[in-house]
């Protein structure tokens, strides 16, 4: 079992990056395929195994030559619960669960670097960093890419770039994204306008855990859609510039709220804090919304400070699979809601008295 499942959290959650009050994390994902093997949708089980072996050998070399240490896990060696925790920590995609037979995942100790093997493409390299750090994330991803390419032969054509199973990823094979917390834009009903502007620029917005029901807590992921015709640097520049603009809009909206509705806002975030520190039953959705309110209250210094790291960690710790993995057993929904409430109380009350 990945040490990362048990040790509290991934590095990206520590809240240390620039603009981490609004930009929770920055992520770069690179799709790569091996030349001589059919793509995962068309390869045999034996071929899938050989892909894992080849990547594992390249990873071993990477470990030997550098300071990072990556570990390879086959999905079939993990329990279903452990796999779902990897999804909640954004280390593998929900789709990857469907290839539990043939899939594998590679993770660094601090979980900033990871690789999905045999998802839609043979390799999906990923780097997640705290705050707005797209450039450092790209540099780290590109270095890992170079290191692996010393032993792996990645499918590439000069005309259309890196070849991917889906033509929506061809070219750079890169998906760059930022996870942003935009409560003030949401409260002031400005999201449709902002989202519209983002889409006009050819970028995509979605909720935190991808599925509609979970798109709550005012967390929005913004990413590029175009992968062919622009360089990685251009794509990242566009996304960074846009993120900075949205960040400024969110800050302005917060100031407006403070100016026009300070008492209502104070009341809202204080109630959220009160519920989180005292409730005995807490659903996942309610927790996400209240954590969003508390986060805003902390950013605006309306309530006692809670480290951003704890709020980030709670975003993952209160997810169903993670709660169960900490309990060491499968739990029914009622039991989960009780454990969630108790976990949040503990985590926040340990901070009381500051």
């Amino acid at each position, binding site marked *: 079992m990945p040490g990362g499942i048990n040790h509290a959290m991934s590095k990206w959650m520590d809240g240390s990056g620039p603009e981490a009050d609004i930009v929770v994390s920055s992520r770069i994902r690179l799709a790569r395929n091996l030349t001589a*093997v059919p793509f995962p*949708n068309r390869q045999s089980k034996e071929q899938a195994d050989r892909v894992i072996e080849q990547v594992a050998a390249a990873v071993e070399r990477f470990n030997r030559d550098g300071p990072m240490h990556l570990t390879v896990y086959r999905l079939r060696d993990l329990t279903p619960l452990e796999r779902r925790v990897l999804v909640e920590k954004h280390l593998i995609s929900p789709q990857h669960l469907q290839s539990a037979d043939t899939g594998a995942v590679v993770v660094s100790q601090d979980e900033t670097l990871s690789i999905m093997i045999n998802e839609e493409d043979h390799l999906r390299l990923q780097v997640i960093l705290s705050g707005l750090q797209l450039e450092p994330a790209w540099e780290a991803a590109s270095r890992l890419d170079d290191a692996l390419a010393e032993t792996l032969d990645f499918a590439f*054509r000069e*005309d259309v770039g890196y070849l991917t199973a889906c033509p929506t990823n061809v070219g750079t094979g890169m998906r760059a994204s930022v996870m942003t917390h935009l409560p003030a834009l949401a409260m002031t009903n400005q*999201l*449709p306008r902002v989202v519209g502007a983002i889409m006009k620029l050819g970028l995509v917005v*979605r909720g935190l855990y991808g599925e*509609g029901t979970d*798109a709550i807590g005012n967390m929005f992921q913004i990413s590029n859609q*175009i992968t062919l015709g622009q360089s990685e640097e251009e794509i990242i520049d566009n996304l960074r510039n846009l993120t900075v603009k949205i960040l400024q809009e969110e800050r302005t909206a917060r100031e407006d709220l403070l100016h026009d509705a300070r008492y209502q806002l104070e009341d809202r975030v204080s109630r959220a804090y009160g519920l989180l520190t005292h409730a005995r039953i807490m659903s996942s959705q309610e927790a996400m919304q209240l954590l969003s309110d508390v986060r805003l209250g902390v950013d605006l210094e309306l309530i006692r400070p809670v480290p951003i790291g704890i709020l980030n960690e709670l975003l993952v710790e209160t997810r169903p699979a993670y709660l169960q993995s900490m309990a060491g057993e499968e739990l029914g929904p009622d039991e989960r809601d009780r454990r969630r409430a108790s976990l949040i109380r503990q985590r926040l009350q340990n901070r009381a008295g500051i």
Partner: protein
Amino acid sequence: MLCQQCRKRPATVQITQITDGHKVELHLCEECALKSGKLDFISDPQVSLENFLTGLLQSDINAAAGARPAGVQCQACGMTYQEFSRTGKLGCAECYRFFMDQLQPVFRRIHGNTRHHGKLPRRLEGAARARREVQELRERLRRAVEAENFEEAAALRDEIRLLEASLNQEPGKTGG
């Protein structure tokens, strides 16, 4: 799929709404989605992007039915273009070679572009970078000639010749 609101434009945005605990999925075009003001929940654009892609491929194939030589197929993995347009997924790296003519318009629709301008793998870097440069110089040369800027055109032509000469000397030259 057509937009559920206006039933005119293709639905490119999928919106999941939660009303009284019930999940309702809406498929809208960009315009109606913006008008509806319900954009806070765009669920999994990757899924809608893929729907969009297969939709595009299907309409493409219907439009060209009969006009296209039947049975374009990848000789490496056996994937047919028909099958690709149903799933939106190619079967292997060689599919790109066998389907390139059909893929070009698809690239243009998705990315607005058909040529890679990003990272080059280290093993190809030297020669590939030079070839990319030659191509860019040719484009500048074309524009210089169009603008009847012959002095610049002459300089560009010399530069291209030099680069091409050095490329031809390169031992590890690979076809592009």
